[in-house]
């Protein structure tokens, strides 16, 4: 890893998950949030997004930020970038909390110099492929959800203009995602942008009478308000409820993971819990729900990305509360509105390592996925088997470092591609914060966690050495040739504390 990269500056190498935290404070200086002023009874409402952007006085080299709460239905990023490009703005740094395949349409702006750098917790689809192929002059930065908040505090991400979608807003910019025709739930990732951006535009398809309640972002931070016909594809923004997978393999892995959790010693009254939004990870909740009912265990809180399945568990009295930084389906919005114990939280409270205690620090059990995991338990959730960027760091490393029990669930191989292997292509979450891996072909406990291994063995759960599992997988799939890469670094992966845990090289085509 080089000590410096053009477009980023000095790189501080990762030196352990808690090396920086245990000092008790952050050494980097923080930047103050901007201070603005408005005359009484002035009007924030703009005729169009274009009008609002022009009034924000965009400049070359600016940083524009977005949240990803519209999920796969987001059209705002494209609309905004298109306007900026039409205005001739160049050299934009795009600081979106995450980029999905819904953002594929902005690819042309990577090529014409409109966007020259990306900060995001995840990048997928055509964008991730193009970035790995070296389309952009400056290296992109992958951060965690908690890490993004830190980067805004330190001015590493200096937001000139935040464009925040809301499903409802009043004319002063008190806005929420909890109701309206395009309701998407929590606006947790948008809060920090509203506080720190030099200018903030709230974009909504639903203006409500003043005041808009609840206030996920508040008027004292909002410069402009725009009513548009559509913030995106409502069926993808607010698509129904999340169903538990029916894929036998995911269910089998989830079943095994639930057994591990049951006998880990962590599943006790008052425990806190987080699972992913789909696949095997969400399916674990199904089995945990059953075990909680059988053993009449009552949990403290559900954290994180929240699905209707979590809401069901809250309503059944299995948990006392939900802390919701991001909602994954439409059914969640109603609960967020109606249930006082379903609480919207900003990303900093969720996962920023540099404060007096984010909520991931209070997690007992988290279940996470992986694109790859190596024999040191290091996890890749960002690059796919071709070396393209096709995933998200998200809250992976944040929750893994905080939780007492971090369970990674994944198949041991997909198609013919080994998932459990000697070396991952990109490290996002360090192995030291992973406690146990559950695959369909075996359960592997991190050798550092001797007590966990004993607890599982006492319950008759057979475990396997991860090195043996990797060998077993290789016997089935054959030895995969590593991804061919060039010397050029196209992106860096930041650990949540701001150090660089890995770099991403351009792939050789």
């Amino acid at each position, binding site marked *: 890893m080089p000590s410096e990269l053009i477009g980023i500056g000095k790189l501080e190498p990762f030196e352990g998950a808690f090396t920086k935290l245990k000092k008790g404070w952050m050494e980097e200086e923080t930047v103050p949030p901007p201070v603005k002023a408005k005359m009484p009874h002035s009007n924030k409402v703009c005729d169009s997004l274009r009008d609002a952007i022009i009034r924000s006085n965009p400049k070359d080299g600016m940083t524009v930020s977005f949240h990803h709460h519209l999920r796969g239905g987001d059209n705002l990023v494209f609309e905004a970038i298109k306007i900026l490009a039409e205005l001739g703005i160049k050299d934009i740094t795009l600081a979106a909390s995450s980029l999905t395949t819904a953002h594929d349409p902005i690819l042309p702006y990577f090529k014409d110099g409109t966007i020259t750098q990306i900060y995001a917790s995840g990048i997928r689809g055509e964008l991730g492929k193009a970035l790995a192929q070296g389309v952009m002059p400056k290296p992109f930065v992958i951060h965690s959800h908690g890490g993004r908040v830190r980067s805004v505090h330190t001015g590493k991400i200096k937001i000139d203009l935040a464009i925040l979608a809301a499903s409802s807003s009043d004319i002063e910019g008190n806005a929420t995602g909890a109701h309206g025709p395009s309701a998407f739930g929590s606006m947790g990732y948008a809060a920090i942008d509203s506080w720190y951006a030099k200018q903030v535009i709230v974009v909504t398809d639903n203006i409500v009478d003043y005041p808009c309640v609840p206030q996920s972002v508040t008027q004292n931070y909002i410069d402009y308000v725009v009513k548009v016909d559509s913030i995106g594809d409502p069926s993808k923004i607010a698509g129904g409820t999340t169903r538990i997978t*029916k894929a*036998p*393999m995911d*269910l*089998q892995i989830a*079943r095994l993971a639930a057994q591990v959790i049951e006998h880990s010693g962590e599943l006790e009254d008052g425990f806190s819990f987080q699972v992913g939004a789909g696949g095997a990870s969400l399916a674990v909740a199904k089995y945990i729900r059953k075990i909680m009912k059988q053993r009449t265990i009552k949990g403290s809180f559900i954290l994180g990305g929240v699905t209707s399945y979590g809401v069901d568990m809250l309503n059944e009295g299995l948990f006392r509360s939900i802390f919701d930084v991001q909602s994954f389906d439409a059914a969640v919005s109603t609960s967020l509105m109606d249930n006082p114990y379903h609480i919207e939280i900003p990303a900093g409270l969720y996962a920023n390592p540099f404060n007096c205690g984010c909520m991931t620090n209070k997690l007992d059990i988290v279940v996470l996925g992986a694109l790859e995991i190596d024999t040191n338990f290091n996890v890749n959730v960002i690059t796919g088997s071709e070396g393209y960027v096709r995933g998200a760091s998200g809250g992976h490393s944040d929750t893994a470092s905080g939780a007492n029990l971090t369970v990674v669930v994944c198949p041991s191989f997909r198609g013919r591609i080994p998932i459990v292997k000697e070396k991952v292509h990109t490290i996002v979450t360090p192995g030291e914060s992973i406690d146990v891996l559950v695959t*369909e*072909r075996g359960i592997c406990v991190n050798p550092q966690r001797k007590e966990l291994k004993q607890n599982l063995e006492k319950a008759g759960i057979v475990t396997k050495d991860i090195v043996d599992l990797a060998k077993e997988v290789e016997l*089935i799939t054959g030895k995969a040739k590593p991804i061919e890469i060039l010397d050029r670094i196209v992106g860096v992966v930041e650990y949540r504390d701001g150090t660089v845990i890995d770099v991403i090289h351009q792939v050789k085509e």
Partner: protein
Amino acid sequence: MLYIPGNNPAMLQQGSVYGADGLLLDLEDAVALNQKDAARTLVSHMLKYISYEGCEVTVRVNHIDTPFGLEDLKQIVPLQPNAIRLPKVETLDEIERIINVIEQIEDECGLPHDVMNVHVMIETALGVQNVYDIAKYSSRIDAISIGGQDLAADMQLVKANDGVGIDYARKQIVMAAKACKIDVFDTVYVDVENEDGLREEAEYIKKLGFTGKAIINPRQIEVVNEVFTPTDLEIRKAAKIVKAFERNKAEGIGVFAVDGKMVDAPVVQRALRVLEMADVDVESL
């Protein structure tokens, strides 16, 4: 016992990971007529390559009188899976003929006759009538099973799924198996989405005396295992009986009481069977 279509590589390579006790790699009904050759070859290669550790592997071949049956046996018997499952066996002559073919193939390959087991499927009215004679024909036959769908068709039943029409056959087949002291497996439950229906049927056939049940989707494993795995309460009760039996045996007492209920030899046998199914050692309880 999980059925896996013989021409489906994805399912063949993952079959052993779902927690089924046995796998039924199927060359018969789950394979289209024009893919019989492909399935046979695929299953042969998979058997050589994939370790199905922890699972009994049984291959269901086509009936010997179809154009595929003999070739199936020629390719599969030399690989000696745990068992071969023979569909639609109806008469004593037929089972005699098939086992002769199997043993001839084994002789040609220099293989013993007492390693690979034979499972017989009863799927016709004639088969039900002859089941005891068929089952006792050879000591290699270690299990029989009922094929509910085909039997219902053979019986010209219009509505088959409620199990009323095949109820007699189920009982007859269980009785034959018990008389021969071999395992007996129930037919599949085709409505994968209906977990409650599956549970009800599994509980019923357990009461009839079946050893287990064939399933067609890994999602059905959990329910069937739950039904067939003794509960903690059953295990503790069984352990109590067995322990009391051993104490009393030492003193020469054959009939005694546990929790106010009479215990004699058959009760002890059933308790031992519970512990065996639960795979627990009485001393550990």
